[in-house]
């Protein structure tokens, strides 16, 4: 028994090192004085962060990415609310196959989605733009949002709705007074997850980017230039902190939702 636990400890230790290796190196190189991203380290500097502040192209890319991420978050959450509500509350013809189809982008290789959207846009004679990336992102984020929101709607006792109705409220008011407050944490979590996925998405963005780059597309372009690498490390550190911050907020809301509906906590999302 003791040996087994010992094995596990070593195994988990190595695993965490493997898992966190890149994430730990990111800030290490971001604060490293040398312009070459390799060991040994040569000293502490915040220079690379200040470089970020003056980089105009980066700011444009960041603004594009933010715009896309916000739009994606709002629209995929909206579409997901409808789908999650429909699938958890109503039984309708072909529900399983419709839901399966809507969830398909979750298991489809992203390159396929990128390629097929590219084909349609070119064939239809549209220009590649930030909109084409946004559409692709809404498509891949919606299934994640549905997964989160379905559990939020599923945790909702149907009799709460009936009780509200029975006590004399209209359907419309029931939605805003009872359903919406109770799934609100799920909606916030869904918005944040979609935002985070979109902000980091590269494969589709690379296929569908026109002349305006998103942040990951910009990073991809810079990876070729060794001199730019420390700056990218600083950027990566900032992005990581933003992502973790957003995730912590999302998790907080999810937990609050669980507490509110009085259902036992069953672990993380995804």
């Amino acid at each position: 028994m003791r040996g087994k636990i010992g094995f596990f400890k070593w195994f988990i230790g190595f695993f965490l090192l493997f898992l966190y290796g890149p994430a730990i190196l990111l800030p290490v190189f971001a604060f490293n004085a040398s312009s070459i991203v390799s060991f040994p380290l040569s000293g502490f500097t915040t220079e690379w962060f200040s470089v970020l502040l003056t980089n105009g192209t980066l700011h444009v890319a960041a603004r594009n990415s933010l715009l896309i991420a916000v739009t994606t978050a709002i629209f995929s959450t909206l579409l997901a609310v409808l789908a999650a509500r429909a699938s958890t509350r109503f039984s309708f013809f072909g529900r399983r196959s419709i839901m399966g189809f809507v969830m398909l982008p979750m298991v489809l290789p992203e390159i396929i989605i990128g390629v097929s959207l590219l084909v349609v846009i070119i064939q239809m004679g549209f220009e590649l733009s930030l909109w084409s990336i946004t559409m692709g992102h809404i498509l891949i984020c919606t299934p994640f949002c549905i997964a989160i929101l379905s559990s939020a709607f599923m945790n909702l006792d149907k009799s709460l709705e009936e009780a509200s109705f029975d006590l004399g409220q209209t359907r419309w008011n029931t939605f805003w007074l009872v359903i919406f407050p109770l799934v609100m944490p799920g909606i916030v979590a869904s918005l944040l997850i979609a935002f985070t996925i979109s902000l980091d998405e590269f494969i589709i963005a690379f296929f569908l980017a026109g002349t305006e780059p998103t942040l990951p597309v910009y990073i991809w372009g810079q990876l070729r230039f060794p001199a730019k690498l420390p700056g990218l490390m600083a950027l990566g550190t900032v992005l990581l902190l933003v992502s973790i911050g957003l995730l912590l907020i999302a998790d907080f809301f999810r937990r609050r939702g669980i507490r509110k509906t009085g259902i036992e906590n069953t672990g993380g999302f995804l």
Partner: protein
Amino acid sequence: MVGFQKWRRSESAQGLFLISPTLGFALLLLAVPLIMVVALSFWTQDYLTLDRTFTTANYQTAWTEPMYQYLMARSLKISIFVTAVTVLVAYPVAYFISFHVVPKRKAMWIFLITIPFWTSYLMRIFLWKVILGYNGVINGTLTGFGIIDEPLSFILYNQNAVVITLAHAWIPFAILPIFVALERVDRSLIEAAEDLGDSGIRRFFRVTLPLSMPGVIAATIIVFIPTIGDYVTPRLVGGPNGLMISNMIELQFKKANNAPLGAALAISAMGIVTFFALVFLWMNRKYVRGPS
């Protein structure tokens, strides 16, 4: 008319009405594009114009040309290898969290495991290059301690690097479904097996593993499918021998300007992936039902 009115108020109608925007969006941006890709794969690119006469030439090229055959085989090999490594590493981790972590801390552990996943995707791949490289973290440390004289060269710009990087990227997605499946295993069943005289290892293979198999299969599919479609990892850390089919698809669509061939390659790759996914599912069903 009365019949229609009644139908309009029915559950089925309300549900369909509610889901129609989402479904419409998915039809427009998923079904239509996929159909167009299929159509495109039967056409020919003629410099700047498309020849829309039906031809299977693209598929013949995709399936007979040695380079594509070779790339496809290598992609499959790498993906299967990545999947195997990922699931084999993920299982003990999921088992540890499910069986050896106190319930209160489980959510925290799951969170801990998903955090690195939120590092920028490109950055993560690039950092593996830094870790595995000639002057990288591993070689630097090993030579620094005098364990090796010459830097190890078998870990960068080859298939091993691709496997390590992809496994790292997908491991949280493998741990989660296995963890969920293990959490659902009724602990009294394991106690029952012990009570009936099974040893620890037999207990694991006869009760815990079979009951968590759906999670393992889900993990396998979740990891296997996207890895085939990744063209960034092979490009950054794979070197010339680490390139995969997705790189070729990307090349055909962008630089080589032969979208129909790219489409044929993409459809073929998807077909193969689907075939493997179905095999996994079928194996799962066999396994769950047990040998009969």
